[in-house]
């Protein structure tokens, strides 16, 4: 199992230029430490207008900064919004290739389509067509990265023949993923040979079912890229401290704040009834966890909050249900002081990571 970090860049009010900068600088410091400690990836979302919840509209810049201050950790778009008003496909291909070069081939490319009216309405995008435009974009990207020249005539965009440069550093191209929140999207990922970048928290039983279906389905996929990425990634909170009770209480405050902020978002479906958004995604779950009867011990199932032993037990369960990677959200609204976040990372690396090293790593590569 591999471990990574996952950034929304949550900035509490009151906003000053210093608070925004502090949150970004804290995140960079965490990423640098995570690289030293052996974490495998760092992911950053693309969100727009989501006040306090996420101030990360230009993840490629943050990820470039991450790449420049680290050596090994992979940098991931989690995700690029594949909707024409948000991102032009040519720009996506160019930006990602440049980041792949600058990072020395450490790029992971997550794709998705946005799920809030706040964002879709802000860009005047049509919620009815986002799944279709995403499908078109993900089929174009690998070709734009790898072909000498490229031309395209599609439903949502077109271009005459040009040489799209630069080309990606990784061969044949970076691994591709799709954000999975709504039930069924994991099947869209599987059908296209894309990794499943899960963005929901907890609930082993449901995740196990969805992962099993993903694994079954991807064996017969028609990959959009030059290779199949059959990995399953999930997101989790992380706060680790020797004092289990204290760690759980602190971590719970962070998780509750995140869930509360997330529940403030206007889902696409809330404002704009559309078959394109048949479910509310992760919002109902987060709302229940924020204030409902699920805001109890049971809702903490599978969360990496507590002492090392508790976290090992939780992550072993994720491993058992088939998850390959877990990406951790470390803070929300800077509720946890930066020093404690860094200490939590160090303790996790010292006490938890060894329980997940394979024999080869444990034996120093001798196995």
């Amino acid at each position: 199992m591999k471990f990574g970090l996952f950034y929304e860049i949550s900035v509490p009010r009151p906003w000053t230029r210093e608070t925004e900068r502090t949150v970004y600088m804290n995140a960079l410091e965490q990423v640098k430490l995570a690289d030293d400690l052996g974490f495998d990836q760092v992911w950053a979302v693309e969100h727009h207008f989501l006040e306090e919840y996420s101030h990360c509209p230009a993840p490629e810049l943050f990820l470039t900064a991450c790449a420049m201050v680290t050596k090994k950790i992979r940098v991931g778009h989690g995700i690029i919004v594949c909707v024409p008003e948000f991102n032009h496909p040519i720009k996506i291909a160019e930006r990602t290739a440049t980041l792949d070069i600058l990072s020395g081939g450490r790029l992971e490319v997550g794709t998705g389509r946005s799920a809030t009216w706040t964002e879709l309405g802000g860009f005047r995008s049509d919620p009815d067509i986002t799944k279709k435009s995403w499908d078109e974009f993900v089929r174009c990207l690998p070709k734009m990265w790898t072909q000498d020249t490229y031309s395209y005539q599609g439903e949502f965009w077109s271009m005459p023949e040009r040489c799209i440069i630069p080309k990606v550093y990784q061969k044949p191209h970076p691994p591709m993923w799709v954000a999975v929140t709504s039930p069924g999207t994991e099947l869209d990922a599987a059908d296209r040979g894309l990794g499943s970048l899960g963005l929901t928290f907890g609930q082993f039983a449901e995740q196990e079912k969805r992962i099993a279906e993903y694994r079954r389905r991807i064996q017969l996929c028609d990959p959009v890229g030059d290779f199949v990425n059959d990995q399953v990634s999930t997101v989790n909170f992380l706060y680790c401290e020797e004092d289990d009770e204290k760690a759980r209480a602190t971590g719970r405050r962070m998780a509750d704040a995140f869930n509360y902020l997330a529940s403030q978002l206007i889902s696409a479906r809330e404002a704009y009834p559309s078959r394109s958004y048949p479910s509310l995604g992760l919002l109902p779950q987060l709302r229940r966890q924020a204030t409902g009867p699920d805001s109890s011990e049971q809702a903490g199932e599978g969360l990496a909050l507590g002492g090392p032993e508790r976290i090992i037990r939780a992550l072993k369960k994720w491993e058992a249900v088939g998850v390959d990677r877990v990406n951790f959200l470390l803070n929300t609204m800077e509720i946890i002081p930066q020093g404690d976040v860094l200490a939590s990372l160090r303790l996790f690396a010292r006490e938890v990571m060894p329980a997940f090293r394979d024999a080869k790593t444990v034996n120093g590569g001798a196995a």
Partner: protein
Amino acid sequence: MPLFGTLELPSAVASLPTLRNLDTEPWTLPKAEIVQMAFEVPRATHALLPKALHPAIPSYVTIWVTRYPESPIGPFLLAQLRLMARAGAHPRGFVLRAYASTREAATGLRERWGLPTETATVTLKRRHDRVMAQVIRDGATILDAALVDPQPISGGDVQYIHSVTLAQAPLDGKTAPWLVQVDPRFTFHKAERGRPDVSRLDGEAWGAPGLALQNPIACTACTCDTDLPRIRFVMDPEVPVVRGTRKIRDSREAE
């Protein structure tokens, strides 16, 4: 923390409906025809929202015009303007003003659920290419709106947000302002979506002086069985709902 509403409660108290009690019997409302229009509105509307609630981001309103062909007080039409918000983590529509087509309906809605309802002429008419809604009060048109170009969708795609009203309610031996949660159920028989077109909305008449509708979002016309249930929760309008919520009964059916 997310933003809160900034309504100065004393300025609103004089015009609030008064509930008889919190033991309102439910109304069953079969075959209701509901037209809902959603528009983004300026952030200045935060001043219309009680301090207990979070504004939606972006701010938006929904205009509801409903024909209830059957009810315990006979058929009536109802038009509402709701400012959308969050009660804690839950989406809610704060009712700014409502107009009912019969005096019985207006009185019942004020006294049972705290809807700030007055009497007016409310109409809902269907043509092949649009569904038109109009509200006329004292000879003046205060709402003239239409759903244009209706296209069939699934009722499962429609999410109606529950309402919150601000009313004087008797609790703990005294009558005071409370937010009242009104949470109907909906069983859909038919649903359509179209473009909202509002040619006239008199903000003053709807409790939102100077209101300017901005970015149109969506419009639906649905036929469904619904109800107005027993009151389950009331909330202190001046305190964040996570601290100021009082449970009146456990379930919609419970005493």
